[in-house]
């Protein structure tokens, strides 16, 4: 860190990403609360454990190979080979991947991406509650969290990604690279997994399975909103000079940029985050006729729909994009549920997947012709590139691998829990152990009390 300005910029950037990581932790807390609130009493502990163990499993695999994929795959395999130089610096045995006083950024940058990985895996976790085996979900968590989403990030969320170069793909706050892929992945799993017992009547009519604890759901989604601030900030480079970017920008004016190193500002995304949240909430309230959970989820869907272009939209555009997206995804959710008998327990495919697709396509029109990158020779943003990008995210890297892996798991008999366990509840055995232990200790205490000589306190 030579020079005071460089030192300050480095330390600021390091602290900036560190703060985003702390904020993003709330997303995972929120997902856990939402899932447990949505599940029934007899499945609580397993539902919670299923989501909590995503944290260590995705973390270690993201350290071992996920982070290397991001730096190696921007043009692999269709537009060039692996980028060995960039990849080598991010292998788990590289000096950069440890305490290193000449690299203060890799750790926090890695962690910011890692928290996105948790989010992707956690989105899938919500859709499959109360009937998937934890072992099967944890394999999926590693695949979406440390393989497929980070491939899509290398392709479409990297300054040198081939989707950015050739398609003009623009997805500043991850409508596609996190939400569309995770929604598509969740759909691939639940299509093979099947619905929860009782979800559909004999004639195929869907039944509502109400959450056991509405307040937990509410707090859960509010925590996700809070963590989303960290997610948005983490998608930016906080301060960089034109010289640091090294592209077409001229002059001396420093700027915040999106992940593609194209200029934006924290102020812009603050406007647009709040306005798209509001548009989503208002539209969801109307379209769901005041259903509390769809309204709250609609706020999230509004942000997700506007996220692809929230670095550049006007706040009113962000609000309207969020509102339009919510109307589409709400109707699509129920159409898919009725038509294909899909049980998406928390609406994850709709709120994340459909919102992501819709958001990408809308951004293609609203930002038509805008530069996707500060570097020369890149395609500009356009509707065709965005639509192809949406298909790659939702279907190619999301739905397809999830469907294939789930089919293999189903063939091996390791995807779904036995029907007897689904009826008695995943926590049945633990509940019994708990009740037995309680009865035993109460009996022991009473015996000690009545036997005399033992103080009651």
């Amino acid at each position: 860190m030579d020079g005071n300005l460089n030192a300050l910029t480095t330390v600021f950037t390091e602290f900036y990403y560190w703060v985003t990581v702390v904020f993003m932790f709330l997303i995972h807390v929120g997902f856990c609360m939402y899932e447990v609130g949505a599940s029934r009493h007899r499945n609580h502990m397993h539902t919670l454990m299923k989501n909590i163990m995503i944290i260590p499993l995705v973390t270690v695999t993201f350290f071992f190979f996920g982070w290397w994929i991001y730096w190696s795959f921007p043009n692999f395999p269709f537009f060039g080979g692996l980028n060995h130089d960039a990849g080598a610096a991010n292998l788990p045995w590289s000096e950069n991947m440890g305490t290193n006083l000449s690299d203060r950024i890799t750790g926090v940058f890695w962690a910011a991406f890692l928290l996105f990985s948790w989010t992707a895996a956690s989105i899938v976790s919500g859709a499959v509650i109360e009937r998937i085996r934890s072992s099967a979900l944890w394999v999926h968590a590693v695949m979406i969290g440390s393989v497929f989403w980070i491939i899509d990030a290398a392709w479409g969320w990297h300054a040198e990604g081939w989707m950015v170069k050739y398609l003009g793909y623009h997805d500043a706050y991850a409508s596609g690279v996190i939400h569309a892929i995770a929604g598509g992945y969740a759909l691939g799993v639940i299509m093979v997994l099947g619905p929860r017992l009782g979800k559909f009547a004999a004639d195929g009519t869907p039944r509502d399975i109400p959450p056991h604890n509405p307040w937990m759901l509410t707090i859960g989604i509010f925590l996700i909103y809070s963590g989303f601030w960290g997610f948005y900030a983490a998608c930016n480079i906080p301060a960089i000079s034109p010289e640091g970017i090294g592209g077409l920008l001229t002059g001396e004016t420093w700027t915040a940029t999106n992940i593609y190193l194209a200029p934006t500002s924290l102020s812009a995304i603050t406007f647009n985050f709040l306005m798209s949240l509001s548009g989503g909430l208002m539209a969801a309230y109307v379209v769901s006729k005041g259903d509390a959970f769809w309204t709250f989820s609609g706020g999230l869907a509004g942000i997700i729909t506007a996220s692809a272009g929230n670095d550049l939209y006007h706040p009113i555009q962000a609000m309207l994009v969020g509102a339009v997206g919510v109307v589409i995804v709400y109707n699509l959710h129920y159409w898919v549920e009725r038509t294909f008998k899909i049980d998406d327990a928390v609406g994850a495919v709709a709120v994340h997947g459909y919102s992501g697709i819709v958001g990408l396509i809308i951004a293609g029109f609203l930002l038509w012709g805008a530069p996707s990158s500060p570097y020369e020779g890149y395609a500009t943003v356009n509707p065709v590139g965005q639509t192809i990008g949406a298909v790659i995210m939702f279907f190619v890297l999301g739905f397809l691998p999830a469907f294939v892996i789930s089919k293999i798991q189903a063939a091996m008999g390791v995807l779904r829990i036995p029907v007897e366990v689904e009826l008695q509840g995943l926590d049945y055995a633990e509940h019994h152990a708990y009740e037995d232990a309680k009865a035993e200790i109460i009996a022991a205490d009473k015996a000690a009390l009545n036997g005399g000589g033992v103080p009651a306190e």
Partner: protein
Amino acid sequence: MSTIGYDSWAVDLAEVGAVYPFQGSEGLMVLLGVIFWIGWHRIQFVREGAHLEKAKRMGDREKINSLLEKY
């Protein structure tokens, strides 16, 4: 042609101002936004009125008593 007024970032940021799409249409955007907001109130007023009309005839005296007891 670019909706944001720039089709390249070959610019000096000191000379760049607004970069949102459709600059010059702010008035129209505000109008659309206000229509959305007022429209929302209108829909909500009508629906809540209809709901309360329906709800006031739904109550069962016994159940209401037990609800009052529950506080």
